[in-house]
């Protein structure tokens, strides 16, 4: 039993140890480096085609192609969190005890042993000196506390006491930021939506897991435009968006790259653009009957071939299909059969493969339309992250640049004399050089005031 609690204690100590903190920081740094050197976002199949089988197996097992989302990388982040929680829990009671500590008495002999201490003699009695000392101290220090002492005046004065707690604020802020990120990934979503001019949609394709979700409202793109500077560099990408709810337009806004639109918690960012097929004019020749038909196919709309029960639609469009130029997929739907389709090369109208079943297809002309690529996001955790960021900055700034400064003062009768003897000592939790200057100034001010009060008598 004894041994077991010893083991758990050792384990707990190790979890909160500084060695672990520094190791985790350095290991995280090294792993992050691997992630920036290895191409991220390859699918397992792509990895297998690029690397030798053994290497590919290793890469896929360790998840090197999507390193920052792997379980083991997140475990490292979790370990950092556990480490900072345990180490904060272990140190906090000590800090609090130190902050709560109140002197019960001040031993003048001990004050002389401080690295920063000063003896001041005066022609006043300690009762006369007391208001001068309290006055000088309370100008510099917010909290001046008298230590009960019958035959002398003894007090402590301190400031910046909370600076010792700031390091816990920094630690907590890391947890808050990660909590915000976690909430965002659980309750939020991130995806994209491509809208042609005039088109409206509620469907967002998510980045993770090849899924789509439907928004409770539709977004319509009225216009997408790019403007350029004189030297040809792009100046502005602008999408004029409108929100449509139950067929009614309820909100309108133009978005730019740095100026997104937020509607009921969902934010739309200008992310990309491109052009897509609006409609295509085609000539279909029935190779069985020799008849030919001229049709206009609006993108993704079924059109019936006159005099038949066959319907065709332009289903997919690429500006450059495998270096063969522009191409589109034409799908033929015939009653009683599964739809069949094929890539039709638009620029190579004589290509013998431009056919679907018994129809030879020739594209006579196409009309394109611009589409805007929107990044769509809902992140309820973002405000928690912002809060964490603010706390972290304040915490770091105050941990670095504030110190806990404390003064001990004792003023009492010196042996066999009615004049008082004054002892002052000081200590600072950091930056002792700056505090030394402050301490000396304080002592000189006290000395001067005591002198002028003495001559006043």
């Amino acid at each position, binding site marked *: 039993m004894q041994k077991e609690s010893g083991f758990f204690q050792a384990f707990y100590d190790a979890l909160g140890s500084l060695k672990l903190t520094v190791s985790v920081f*350095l290991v995280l740094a090294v792993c992050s*480096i691997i992630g*920036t050197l290895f191409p991220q976002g390859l699918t397992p199949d792509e990895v297998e085609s690029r690397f030798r089988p053994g290497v590919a197996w290793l890469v896929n097992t360790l998840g090197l192609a999507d390193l920052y989302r792997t379980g083991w990388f997140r475990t490292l982040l979790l370990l950092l969190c556990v480490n900072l929680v345990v180490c904060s829990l272990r140190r906090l009671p000590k800090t609090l005890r130190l902050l709560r500590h109140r002197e019960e008495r001040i031993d003048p002999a001990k004050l002389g042993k401080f690295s920063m201490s000063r003896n001041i003699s005066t022609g006043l009695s300690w009762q006369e000196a007391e208001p001068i000392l309290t006055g000088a101290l309370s100008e510099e220090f917010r909290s001046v506390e008298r230590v009960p002492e019958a035959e002398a005046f003894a007090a402590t004065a301190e400031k910046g006491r909370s600076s010792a707690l700031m390091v816990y604020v920094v630690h907590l802020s890391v947890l808050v930021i990660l909590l915000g990120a976690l909430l965002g990934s659980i309750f939020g979503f991130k995806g994209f939506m491509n809208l042609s001019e005039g088109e409206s949609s509620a469907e967002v394709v998510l980045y993770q897991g090849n899924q789509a979700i439907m928004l409770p409202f539709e977004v319509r793109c009225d216009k997408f435009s790019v403007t350029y500077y004189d030297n040809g560099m792009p100046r502005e990408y602008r999408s004029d968006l409108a929100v449509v709810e139950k067929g009614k337009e309820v909100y309108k806004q133009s978005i730019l790259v740095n100026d997104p639109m937020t509607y009921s918690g969902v934010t739309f960012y200008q992310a990309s653009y491109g052009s897509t097929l609006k409609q295509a004019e085609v000539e279909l020749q029935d190779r069985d009957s020799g008849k030919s038909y001229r049709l206009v196919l609006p993108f993704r709309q079924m059109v019936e071939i006159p005099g038949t029960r066959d319907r065709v639609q332009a289903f997919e469009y690429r500006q450059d299909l495998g270096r063969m130029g522009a191409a589109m997929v034409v799908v033929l739907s015939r009653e009683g059969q599964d739809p069949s389709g094929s890539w039709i090369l638009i620029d190579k109208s004589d290509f013998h493969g431009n056919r679907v079943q018994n129809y030879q297809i020739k594209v006579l002309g196409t009309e394109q339309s611009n589409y805007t690529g929107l990044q769509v996001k809902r992140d309820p955790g973002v405000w928690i992250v912002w809060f964490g960021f603010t706390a972290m900055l304040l915490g770091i700034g105050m941990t670095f640049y504030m110190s806990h400064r404390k003064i001990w003062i004792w003023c009492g009768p010196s042996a066999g004399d009615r004049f008082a003897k004054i002892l002052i000592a000081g200590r600072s939790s950091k930056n002792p050089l700056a505090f030394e200057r402050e301490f000396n100034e304080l002592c000189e001010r006290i000395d001067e005031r005591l002198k002028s009060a003495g001559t006043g008598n």
Partner: protein
Amino acid sequence: MIDSSLLLAVTTFAYLACMLFYLAGVIFHYRPILSWGTYTGFGTLGIQTAAILLRWKESYDLGYGHAPLSNLYESLVFAAWAIMLIYLVMELRSRQRTLGVFPALFAFLAMAYASFSTGIDSKIQPLLPALKSNWLIAHVVTCFLGYAAFAVSCGISFLYLLRKTQTDNPGPKGFFAILPEARQLDEFNYQMILFGFLWLSLGIITGSVWANSAWGTYWSWDPKETWSLITWFIYAALLHARTLQGWRGTRVAWLSLVGFGCVLFTYFGVNFLLSGLHSYATR
């Protein structure tokens, strides 16, 4: 006609002169030359400040109207400015003139690289849509103040390690005896790292807030983001080790050099070797 490029050319050579003064002062143990270094440093910083403001105005005259922080050339100029500003403030506060060699050298190298590299375009360019944001100034200024503090810290670390090589001969006749004591160098180094860490944190956070409003995500593990986080990890490890484990001196100096290596990779390596969202910083 005085324009910003003329002033920046003057700045480049004046930083070289400044570095040589500091170097000569340290080598010949002659303090008056060190103060020439200081005067040259302040004078050049003034000229460079004027040049940066002038370039800002010139961009308005061209009809573009943006702060001169938009590409690699302008960021190098700003880096040199920030390094010298931070160093000279430290020099005033610490009253130590012997630490100026490396900051002046880094400032000169940044200016020389910006001016003479054929791959860097010094023309004032209009802003890309991605950079049109009020966050641009906040993000670049905070990051570069951090980088500059780490550059100064790297210089102090070099001096510390040089000084340490002479521990066998600590007398007043040692070659590096004109430098502050090792203990003092360690303290300056620590103060610089604290300062840099605060600004690096601010830089990462402003970048993160900006990314959220431009790209819709405050963290995307883009190589630049990741490398700035790696740098942050290294300096965080250093600060923890120094505060709690009592690491002093040599180990801190070496970690600071590693940290500055990460800063350099974040700044240059990521731009040239890795692709990502920060690609506009390559030209």
